[in-house]
């Protein structure tokens, strides 16, 4: 007699359930999300551009102006996280608030605020980069990789 394999039956059941969910689950509002991300992300970048143009107009060198612009934007990201606005904006804007440098500031300051309650060593110290960590790790890794490529292929 052909005994049905329980694993196989379970797989069919799971497949059927997945098919059912396909019909029920709403699609994320990709278009609206994109418009929000583009607008908010664009405004953040525009603000930075205004700051940079202003600094350049005072006769500052391009390198100095860029650095000060970055620092200012990081400060603003941190400030708006601290007063509880950045996360509200992030809920709407998604990638628009995560991708600019202000998003990086948000990730670090939010962690600092959250884990301060566990003290400065086991809280802030240990978990400051709990969200931003992957960006740093893979950012450094890729930097090293590209550096090596440059060393080997330009000599």
């Amino acid at each position, binding site marked *: 007699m052909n005994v049905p394999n329980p694993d196989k039956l379970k797989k069919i059941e799971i497949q059927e359930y*997945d098919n059912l969910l396909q019909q029920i689950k709403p699609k994320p509002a990709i278009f609206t999300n994109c418009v929000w991300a583009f607008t908010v992300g664009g405004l953040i970048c525009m603000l930075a551009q205004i700051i940079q143009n202003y600094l350049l107009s005072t006769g500052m060198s391009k390198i100095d102006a860029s650095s000060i612009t970055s620092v200012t934007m990081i400060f603003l990201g941190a400030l708006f996280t601290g007063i509880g606005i950045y996360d509200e904006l992030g809920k709407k804007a998604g990638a628009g608030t995560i991708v600019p440098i202000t998003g990086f500031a948000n990730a670090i300051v*939010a962690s600092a605020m959250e884990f301060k309650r566990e003290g400065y060593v086991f809280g802030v110290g240990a978990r400051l980069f709990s969200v931003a960590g992957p960006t740093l790790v893979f950012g450094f890794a890729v930097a090293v990789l590209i550096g090596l490529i440059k060393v080997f292929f330009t000599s």
Partner: protein
Amino acid sequence: MASGKKRGKQTVVFDNPPVLTAWSAVVGPKEGDGPWGKDFDFIIDDYMFGEKTWEKAETKMLRETIKLTLSKRFFTPEDVELLLAGDLLNQTVSSNFAARELQIPYLGLYGACSTMAESLVTGSMLMDGGFFERVVAASCSHHYASYRQYRFPTEQGVQSTPSTQWTATAAGAILLEAGGTGPRVTSATIGKVIDMGQTDMADMGCAMAPAAADTIKTHFDDLGRSTDYYDLVVTGDLAKIGMAAAEQLFIRDGLVPKPNYSDCGVLLYDETQGVDAGGSGCGCCAAMLCGPLLKKIVNGDISKLLLVATGALMSPTTSFQGESIPAIAHAVAIEM
């Protein structure tokens, strides 16, 4: 050896059904702004509840809910023989710390968001078994305490998906007594852990719906009851999408159609409150039960309620390791 109290595969029927003599629900600001605000005993206006951490706030919320419940019968914690409680935090700290201050003999429970039903089932069995005469069943959750444990720091700007659920800031506590007047816990079905291979941590409802359907089907099969026996069958926190999935599974199994089926996660908030699919958390069905639902039973709007609290039994660690989300549901029949 059969005691005669067990029916079918997973259901127990109580010879001396414990009476719900007092209950209370304490909720956070968002839940208070929702459609049932006036049905809760107390609405805290600040998520910190005058404490220094989210965890302390959650502990205080549970402790005060239990005290409030006892005060309705003019009892103090010493008058209670057993506390059964649980919550969502690691090592169920909110309940442990509330029990530390209450000094009631305590058994900590973990059933994720199914804990309210788990505590009622366990309490009722211990009472019908003759071990105790006065037991408190309680559970709680705190939005931000859960959010930081399961997801991100609370000030992190993160976009949610339409299936995401909002963990309720809420606590519910019920005093069960061997005698007295009030609604009674008449039967209960203990659920099995069901895993349908769902892995999306932002969609708990769909992971839990099969568990709810399984427990509800088993409940009706074990008791040989028709599906229209209850005035209301209410699941714990499947929320909009999970509830839609559950309804499809019910139709497949020939179970309760609308309108006598609903879900606490769908009921707790208004659509305008920005909670995506709806509410979740131990406090979600605890507060709905101890607030509006029991009020409806006492007022005579409904007389037979089946609460099917659902829980997703994963942790962030298991999810990151690629495990799917196991789920459980326990059913408790409360009848006037």
